[in-house]
């Protein structure tokens, strides 16, 4: 408890670097980041020691008047995630942030501390006021961080869009908290868990809470801010937003679902599950169509949050069917996948930052062959890409496997044809999501890192400074470690959900789940052993033949191949774009700049745009309606003072008449 409280103090000290004099801005940056590293490490350590070896019932129990700080295991799980991500991203930021020297770097490092502080504060809030206060600080600080490069037009519009959206979310959460709080003794979480909310009001509270938290975690159709805000923010900020802030929304929703609302209503879980599944598939589909590296990752976050919420929803459904022992796997899956996603998405945003740093661009169509220029970054990115495609030996498959197991468990319980159709639908979406995610990251990695340079921006690319590599390296190492030895994380997360009494799923042999009847096992370490032995054997026998290797251009047909012969990222996703035209609705426009002859010497430009489905179908009409209705109001708003005095007088008279009549 003291450790956690003092870490909050260190974050505050780090925030104060904002006030350092301008000539010390580099020192301020280092000091700020060091504070963040130390404090995040302390947060992670206190959460870890509380989770593995609890000496007291609460991680933290402290109050100041009506403001409570209260940490249970559910908080600690997310504190662990936030602390670990905070450490490696801050290490990365030591070097990455230097790119902002002279561009308000003190604000960047100071607010960085405040950002993590607000995240930690949300996670240990013990009452609705503290929660909303920290939630709002988190939203405002992240808005400022997204808006850091405010010289760019896109950044400003993205930041304000984020601001507006996140406040709609906060409003929804406020309503939900109010509904629950007004039906309980006080607004403290402990009292709110004994609320007497029933019937329609409970449904309304659930809908508002889910909408608010889904917005913050970027579930469709409320994801609209996410693919804009992430590319606009500095890379380490996107890493923290995507890696940690989105999970804080899961924390909030989990607290709401477990503690305040309960899970005995079937359709609550169903809604969460379906929204999650649809977000997962559509998110990854849009990710595969993008060519901006950070937008790809942002849409992939939509996908992964979708999977996490789908697993959580599956757990809620199992709970509503009174299958408590089986629901454990689903909730654990959601937590494990959330943890693994914070590692791998943090890693990938850091490598996106490294690539931007090296080439000055986010557009993968301009890259190619980066693996030769920046070998370490290439290895770390490969690990991240493998993890996000949920391949074996990375943390990705651990989460994904548990998610799939929870849906299989649900399938066993699905007796009626309706439930079976639901399960089939879920598996079709999960299958397509998995395969498309693989395609998406093959495309990202293959286009950016392999092959040949497409433009000259790659030529000046260089390997990144040590701290950036170190940050990425730690994340990549954790991804691989968790992929090979999943049992520590799985057991910790399971204990968060089920308590110490239930036998753990993880063992040194791998993860074992017996909820679906007989046992199913995933033992990555043993598979890796098998792979390593075979691989060693093959590598030795191949290298003995090494003298037969020639280096020559293949299939050149007597010409000099150019780098433009390579497949582009847009070309790579063409079959999928065509297969899912009905959803993606791509807009293609061809402009002929020169067309004397129909086959030869043509010069043309092809513009391809894939507008976000919900942007066009949902948000545009709403925005248009708002603008139209405000221009209707403009007729009343003439701006002349006498008119307003007139309005006031009319209002007064109406009120007076009202008062007399009643």
């Amino acid at each position: 408890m003291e450790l956690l409280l003092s870490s909050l103090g260190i974050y505050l000290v780090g925030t104060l670097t904002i006030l350092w004099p301008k000539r010390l801005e580099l020192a301020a940056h280092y000091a700020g980041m060091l504070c963040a590293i130390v404090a995040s490490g302390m947060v992670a350590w206190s959460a870890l020691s509380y989770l593995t070896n609890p000496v007291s019932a609460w991680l933290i129990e402290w109050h100041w008047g009506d403001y409570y700080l209260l940490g249970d295991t559910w908080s600690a799980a997310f504190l662990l995630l936030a602390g670990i991500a905070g450490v490696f991203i801050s290490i990365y930021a030591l070097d990455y942030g230097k790119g902002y020297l002279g561009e308000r770097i003190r604000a960047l490092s100071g607010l960085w501390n405040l950002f993590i502080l607000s995240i930690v504060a949300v996670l240990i809030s013990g009452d609705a006021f503290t929660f909303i206060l920290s939630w709002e600080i988190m939203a405002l600080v992240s808005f400022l961080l997204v808006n850091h490069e405010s010289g760019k037009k896109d950044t400003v519009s993205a930041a304000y869009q984020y601001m507006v959206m996140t406040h709609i979310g906060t409003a929804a959460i406020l309503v939900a908290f109010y509904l629950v709080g007004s039906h309980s003794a006080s607004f403290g979480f402990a009292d709110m868990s004994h609320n007497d909310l029933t019937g329609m009001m409970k449904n309304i509270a659930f809908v508002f809470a889910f909408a608010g938290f889904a917005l913050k975690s970027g579930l469709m159709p409320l994801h609209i801010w996410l693919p804009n805000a992430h590319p606009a923010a500095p890379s380490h900020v996107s890493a923290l937003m995507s890696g940690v802030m989105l999970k804080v929304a899961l924390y909030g929703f989990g607290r709401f679902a477990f503690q305040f609302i309960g899970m005995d209503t079937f359709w609550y879980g169903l809604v969460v599950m379906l929204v999650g599944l649809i977000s997962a598939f559509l998110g990854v589909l849009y990710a595969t169509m993008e060519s901006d590296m950070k937008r790809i990752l942002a849409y992939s976050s939509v996908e992964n949050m979708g999977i996490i919420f789908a697993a959580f929803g599956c757990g809620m459904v199992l709970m509503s069917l009174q299958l408590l022992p089986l629901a454990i796997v689903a909730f654990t899956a959601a937590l494990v996948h959330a943890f693994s996603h914070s590692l791998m998405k943090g890693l990938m945003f850091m490598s996106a930052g490294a690539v931007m740093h090296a080439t000055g661009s986010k557009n993968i169509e301009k890259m190619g062959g980066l693996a030769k220029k920046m070998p370490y970054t290439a290895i770390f990115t490969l690990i991240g890409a493998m993890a996000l495609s949920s391949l074996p030996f990375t943390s990705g498959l651990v989460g994904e496997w548990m998610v799939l197991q929870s849906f299989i468990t649900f399938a066993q319980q699905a007796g009626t044809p309706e439930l079976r159709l639901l399960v089939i639908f879920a598996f079709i979406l999960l299958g397509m999501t998995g395969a498309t995610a693989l395609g998406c990251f093959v495309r990202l990695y293959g286009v950016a890192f392999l092959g040949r340079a497409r433009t000259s921006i790659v030529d000046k690319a260089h390997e990144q400074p040590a701290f950036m590599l170190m940050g990425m390296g730690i994340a990549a190492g954790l991804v691989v470690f968790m992929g090979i030895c999943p049992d520590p994380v799985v057991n910790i997360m399971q204990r968060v959900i089920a308590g110490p009494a239930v036998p753990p799923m993880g063992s040194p042999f791998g993860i074992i789940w017996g909820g679906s009847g007989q046992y199913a096992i995933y033992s990555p370490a043993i598979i890796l052993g098998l792979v390593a032995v075979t691989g060693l054997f093959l590598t030795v026998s191949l290298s003995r033949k090494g003298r037969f290797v020639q280096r020559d251009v293949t299939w050149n047909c007597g010409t000099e191949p150019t780098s433009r012969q390579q497949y582009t990222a847009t070309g790579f996703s063409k079959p999928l774009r065509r297969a899912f035209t009905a959803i993606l609705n791509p807009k293609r426009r061809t402009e002929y700049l020169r067309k004397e002859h129909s086959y030869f010497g043509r010069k043309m430009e092809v513009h391809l745009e894939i507008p976000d489905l919900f942007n066009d179908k949902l948000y545009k009409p709403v925005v248009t309606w708002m603008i139209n209705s405000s221009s209707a109001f403009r007729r009343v708003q003439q701006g002349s003072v006498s008119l307003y005095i007139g309005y006031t007088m009319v209002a007064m008279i109406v009120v007076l008449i009202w008062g007399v009549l009643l």
Partner: protein
Amino acid sequence: MRFFFEGLGLNIIQGLILLLFAPLLAGIINKVKAFLQKRKGASIFQEYFDLYKWWRKPTILTPYTTTVFVAAPIVYFITCFVAAAMVPGFLSGQVSIGDAFVFVYILALGRFFMTLSSMDAATAFGGMGGSREIYISVLVEPAVMLAILINSMRYHTTTLSSMVIDYDGAYFTVSAALACVAFFLVILAENSRLPVDNPDTHLELTMIHECMTLEYSGPLLTLIHLGSMLKVMVFLTLFGALYLPLAVPLALKILFGAVLIGVVEILNNKMRLFKVRVYMGAAVVLLLLAIIAE
């Protein structure tokens, strides 16, 4: 512990057995096709000679390639081998090191590296193959998931060895027959066979998997071909053990599957790339009916 490692040894032995017979199976498929085309055809052992020939040839690497290019065939082969060690087959007493989902994702690891390697040589053909491979895999995956789902609903587990058809119960049901047909469609698509892909041509309009192997030569090419043959073997073993509801020995069922592949390849043309949607849709619908009927 000792039991575990003995079981693991059996897994490896089974992987080796499947590996040994995989080229023979490919030879048999070719022989069936030749027979139906009224050709004499090559000997059923021809694939062994071909593999030996490629193994002895030198490797040519395009200078643009990275380590991924060399690693990809190795990883691809290993994933096929591990998959072969995981399927339930001829030996009893094997241990489970991963269930059906792990099996799928092990194969996905191979696909990941093969598609990456296709983009590494910086040619148009490679990228085309990779792009189409991804497209096909997105369409196949739902059917694969449903094929796992139906068996796991029937046998209450996703462990492959526990899903083996139980001949004591009612095994020849409508649902089993539908699932069997659907899984055969999945096999054709997963292993780049007609009508989804044509393993015999090197024509850019038709090929998918072969596009990705164009840049390879020598031992690396051997590994890819052997891996592909092994993959067919693995899928036919699964087909025989889990989906073909006939109470005959597994080896016969595998042989039957191979003959069936040969016959289907003779009777069908390669379908247009964007028709594959309909084809896989059919597989998904069959599985859907099978699950409802279960």
